[in-house]
């Protein structure tokens, strides 16, 4: 790093380029003077800062932006065996135009994946989304700080477990050799294996999400609740509102913006439902029930080595997702919320 230039101050850098401005501006925040400096002077002044962002920028360019170009294989009959190097293979693979996309839209497995994705998304919306809100209201109404602290510590914990572990735990509970089967068999019933049942798979997946992340989800609601002014509660109480009416007229309105924002963002992310989680259980349940768009891409690309086809499916999903996210943000802005980025 540029330690050699350490006794460098803004004033000094500026003094070299623009002496008159240096006086009187000493110690003033950068923002005010930025306009007066030339590009080269600003570059000189901020070169250390720019250097600091460089590693992150490089990582993002290489691993987030460069692969976008790789999506051209969606328009190719990509042959991975042309060369060990993917780029060389891309350059020598024949172009097929929209053939891959045509195949996708005629593929019933693709539509099955679309259906599963949407069903899972709606199920999670209905069965998962309200739980953190209810839990947050409950925790918030607990007055004793110690009880709160312990409950929060326990509820946050599963969020930090890996999906592998969560699914392994569920298998020990509900699998063929799990504690539930064990209990049933001990009482003379047949054991049952929920982990491999395609019929109940979507509920299983939702239950796993609830177990892992519902507790973590309360954080943002608790923060919103903590910012409600106690004066509002007092005023409501003075007007004769009981605790339920106070919850209805003070607490819930305070949560409304957060709920709306999270809902909108979730809808924007509708096509992405628990890739790792579902991939881990795909083999046990079979693709009929467990295939979602992400696993469809993985299966066709990584497993079947049909890269062009998988990339085309990924591209379709990516484009629709991008549209959904942008639309969701737009809606968030219309509601007066900040969304992921500022207007």
């Amino acid at each position, binding site marked *: 790093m540029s330690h050699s230039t350490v006794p460098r101050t803004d004033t000094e850098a500026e003094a070299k380029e623009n002496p008159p401005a240096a006086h009187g501006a000493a110690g003033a925040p950068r923002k005010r003077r930025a306009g007066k400096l030339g590009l080269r002077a600003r570059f000189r002044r901020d070169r250390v800062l*720019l250097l600091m962002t460089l590693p992150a920028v490089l990582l993002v360019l290489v691993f987030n932006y460069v692969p976008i170009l790789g999506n051209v294989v969606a328009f190719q009959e990509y042959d991975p065996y042309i060369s060990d190097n993917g780029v060389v293979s891309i350059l020598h693979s024949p172009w097929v135009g929209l053939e891959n996309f045509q195949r996708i839209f005629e593929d019933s497995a693709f539509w099955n994946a679309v259906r599963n994705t949407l069903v899972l998304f709606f199920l999670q919306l209905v069965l998962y989304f309200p739980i953190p809100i209810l839990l947050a209201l409950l925790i918030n109404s607990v007055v004793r700080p110690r009880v709160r602290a312990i409950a929060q510590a326990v509820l946050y914990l599963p969020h930090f477990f890996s999906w592998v572990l969560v699914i392994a735990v569920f298998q020990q509970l509900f699998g063929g050799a799990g504690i539930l089967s064990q209990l049933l068999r001990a009482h003379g019933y047949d054991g049952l294996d929920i982990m491999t049942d395609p019929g109940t798979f979507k509920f299983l997946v939702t239950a796993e999400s609830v177990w892992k992340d519902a507790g973590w989800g309360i954080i943002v609601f608790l923060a919103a609740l903590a910012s409600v002014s106690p004066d509002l509660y007092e005023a409501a109480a003075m007007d004769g509102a009981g605790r339920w009416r106070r919850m209805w007229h003070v607490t819930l309105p305070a949560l409304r913006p957060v709920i709306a924002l999270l809902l909108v963002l979730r809808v924007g992310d509708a096509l992405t439902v628990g890739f790792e989680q579902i991939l881990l259980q795909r083999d046990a349940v079979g693709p009929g029930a467990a295939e979602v768009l992400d696993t469809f891409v993985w299966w066709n690309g990584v497993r079947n080595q049909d890269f062009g086809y998988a990339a085309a499916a990924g591209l379709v999903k990516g484009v629709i997702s991008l549209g959904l996210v942008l639309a969701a943000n737009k809606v968030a802005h219309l509601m007066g919320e900040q969304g992921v980025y500022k207007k």
Partner: protein
Amino acid sequence: MTAVIDEPARTSGRWAAPPRPAWEEPPGRAGLAGKGLVLFLACLAILFPLWIVVVTSLSSRRAIDEAGGLVVIPKSITFVAYQELLSGGQVTRAAVISVLVTAVGTLFSMAVSVLCAYGLSRSGSLGHRWILMLLLATMFFSAGLIPTYLLVQSLGLTDSYLALILPSAISVFNILVLRGFFMNISQELIDSARIDGAGDVRILWQIVMPLSRAVIAVITLFYAVGYWSAWFNASLYLNDQDMLPLQNVMIQLVQKQEAPVGLGQAIKTGELSGLAVQMAVMVMALLPVAVLSPFVQKHFKKGMLTGAVKG
């Protein structure tokens, strides 16, 4: 202003409820019991499975056979399963790999993220808006699994631990959280250090970082948990069985019911319970996270909130 009346403390010590404001009616018995019950059940739903896993991993083969599978009430405690797993072989190697990848990866991610967050936190610096847009845009799209896979292969990262670290090294969200914190540090403090002759590196190291300990702890935990829990990149890019980290070994062991290399014989001859071995691997995977996260948790709320993006 809220009026507060003194309520005689029902219990002493830290369990006591703080005094209630005068207008708030004390909770009824049924309400209190209901709340307690729901919270208790929620916590039980989380802790009971973990309890079974831990207890079974510590049980002898006989205790497991007697229980007919998983053990709920511990009878005899034995560490055989852990001894076997940690006495060399596949699981030991996987655990060491996981620890190393997590340590190196977290350090790398934090270094890159903190530098970037500081670089973007001084308002008015050259190009910080453009760089921010470049990073933010990645929150809206992903290039897709297949192109990323082809890229990592073309870069020659296959069968290298770098494939576990580089592609997912930084999270833009984490950088934004750090940046939000850095921006809240008083400008006067930084300016005065600058006048005293400190450069940006020194300001970051000696002023900004010590003042942001809380958020740095949270983000470090996030990154560390990410590396510790990751298995997908390893399953994509590592072909060599001997290089697999702990999570991937756990998949083979618990999901596919494959005995770890070297232990299969001991399980077959009946010295060791296969179930106890599985549970012990699960405990190894959950222990570091369960031990570390409570220490950081008091900062969670703060960290998550400053995450609100400021353009």
